[in-house]
């Protein structure tokens, strides 16, 4: 397997008043082109930080990331991010939000008409062609996330990074979007890294599941290869022995081997910090 995206011995320290806090310790991972990799782990284990390092939003303290043998040290559209809370610009319509990205990436390469077709094409991919002129506050959470995905896909990224893309959605909407993602992945063959909390989601979508140990100094605990043939159908798989075996493996990792003991009072707080970890880490950095 030739590695397309390579994380080699990535470690990161965040400065704190008590000295540097090591959030990640020697994360090494090789990802092939077209592979769908999920990162799973308990809240606060540094999943988002891994993604932000690949995105270039954070800089690794030690080690580094190579994409097609070139070092990643700044954010860029070839590593598009689907943010957890959609991050659409609220003053732009769905079309304009995608347009901002398309204009930036394809300026000088596509004509105006081609750009327009490309924007509409991408919004159609996520079934949002009916709401081109709607602003984010006029559409539902699931629709916003679809537009966010369309915006990322429209950049034609080498790697698509998704930070708990469906975390804030209800179960039915989440299932619909997971199906959409599987279709798009089958069509376009993107290389994807997805962060998730959801064991079913990880098993259903991924080629490999990377399970992370708890922080501080979190690292990769185990990697699980999901050898289920595609296309995968959630209803058929729910009775499939291999599917349930993979589920069991992930659950066993999370709840037996990496059981996170938290006091009731602090559990809510730690969830909050993990959802805003991007913000607070960035401030620390």
């Amino acid at each position, binding site marked *: 397997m030739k590695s397309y995206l390579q994380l080699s011995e990535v470690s990161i320290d965040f400065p704190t008043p008590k000295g540097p806090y090591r959030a990640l310790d020697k994360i090494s991972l090789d990802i092939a082109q077209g592979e769908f990799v999920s990162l799973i782990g308990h809240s606060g284990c540094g999943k988002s930080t891994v993604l932000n390092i690949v995105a270039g939003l954070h800089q690794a303290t030690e080690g580094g990331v190579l994409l097609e043998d070139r070092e990643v040290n700044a*954010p860029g*559209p070839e590593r598009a991010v689907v943010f957890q809370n959609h991050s659409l610009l609220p*003053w732009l319509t769905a079309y304009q939000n995608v347009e901002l990205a398309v204009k930036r990436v394809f300026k000088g390469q596509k004509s105006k008409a081609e750009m327009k077709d490309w924007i509409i094409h991408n919004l159609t991919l996520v079934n949002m062609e009916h709401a081109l002129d709607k602003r984010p506050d006029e559409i539902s959470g699931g629709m916003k996330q679809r537009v966010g995905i369309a915006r990322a896909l429209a950049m034609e990224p080498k790697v698509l990074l998704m930070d708990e893309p469906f975390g804030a959605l209800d179960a039915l909407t989440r299932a619909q979007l997971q199906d959409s993602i599987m279709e798009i992945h089958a069509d376009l063959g993107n290389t994807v890294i997805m962060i998730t909390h959801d064991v079913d989601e990880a098993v259903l979508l991924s080629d490999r599941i990377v399970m992370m140990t708890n922080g501080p100094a979190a690292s990769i605990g185990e990697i699980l290869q999901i050898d289920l043939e595609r296309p995968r159908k959630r209803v058929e798989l729910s009775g499939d022995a291999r599917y349930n075996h993979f589920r069991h493996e992930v659950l066993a990792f999370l709840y037996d081997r990496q059981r996170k003991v938290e006091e009731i009072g602090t559990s809510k707080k730690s969830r909050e910090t993990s959802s805003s970890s991007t913000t607070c880490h960035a401030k620390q950095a």
Partner: protein
Amino acid sequence: MKALTLSNISQNPSHFRPTPAQLSKLGRALLLPLIATSLFLFLWYNAAKMIDTSLGQFPGPVEVWEQSGNLVTEHRQERQREVAFIERQEVRNAQILSTNPQADVQIRPYTGKPTFIDQIGTSLMTVLAGFFLASLIAIPLGILIGLNESVYTAVNPLIQLFKPVSPLAWLPLVTMVVSAVYVSQDPAFSKSFITSMLTVMLCCLWPTVINTAVGVSNVSKDLLNVSQVLRLPVMTHVFKIIVPASLPLMFTGLRLSLGIAWMVLIAAEMLAQSPGLGKFVWDEFQNGSSNSLGRIMVAVLVIGFIGFLLDRSMLFLQKSVSWDKTAVLR
């Protein structure tokens, strides 16, 4: 069928009939301020009767109403005199030209005393010019400070130092600088206009600078990440992300600034004797006729009303450029 008629009503406002609940809401909205205003007028009327000054009794609502009528009449008369003055010159010039076609004739401008209404116009022009100039400086400065922590750290002490300075302290300095620097044979603006405008500008910069800076530095990290991932160029970043995101706070600053500008202007005009409502008030005070207090009271109410209108127009502007139509602006 019922749903159909309902949607028809909502689409066609001419079919709209207010429900009793809406009527009572409208009634309250009109009635409560009406009661409060009547009460105020009653208290004012009675209190005024009890205050005797060296210029006669303090003006009550009735005297003020009469004086406001007088001020408008005086303005009309002044305009008529101006027209008559110009006409007389034209007639005379025509006579001269009929005897000697080569004669060099000219029309002298009317130099009557500016009326109350002229002074309102002057003050409005000055405040808008000063405010516009201040915004032109304050918004870019605020954006720069908000974007860059180092600039903020560098400039913050200066802002804090100049923010609380009263306009009256600036005024002598501005006056001297303007008379030294603004020297021209045929000035487009009078010196007094420039002086008042600059004083207004210096005092009303700060709320816009500070609020814009706060707005810019509080733009959501998520939106900044989007901008970073897209590698937006600086100008696109500022105009597509930073400015729209900080618009609400920017407008808060602009409205505060305009309010300060209007207050500062009246004080500056009073002290500097430059044309405007402030000078009108001071002149009436110096004049000391039995009508003076009533006329000053008219000016007070007009100043308040114009301040209110200025704020409403900023609010209107904010509503028209705001992207968040659900936000409650008041």
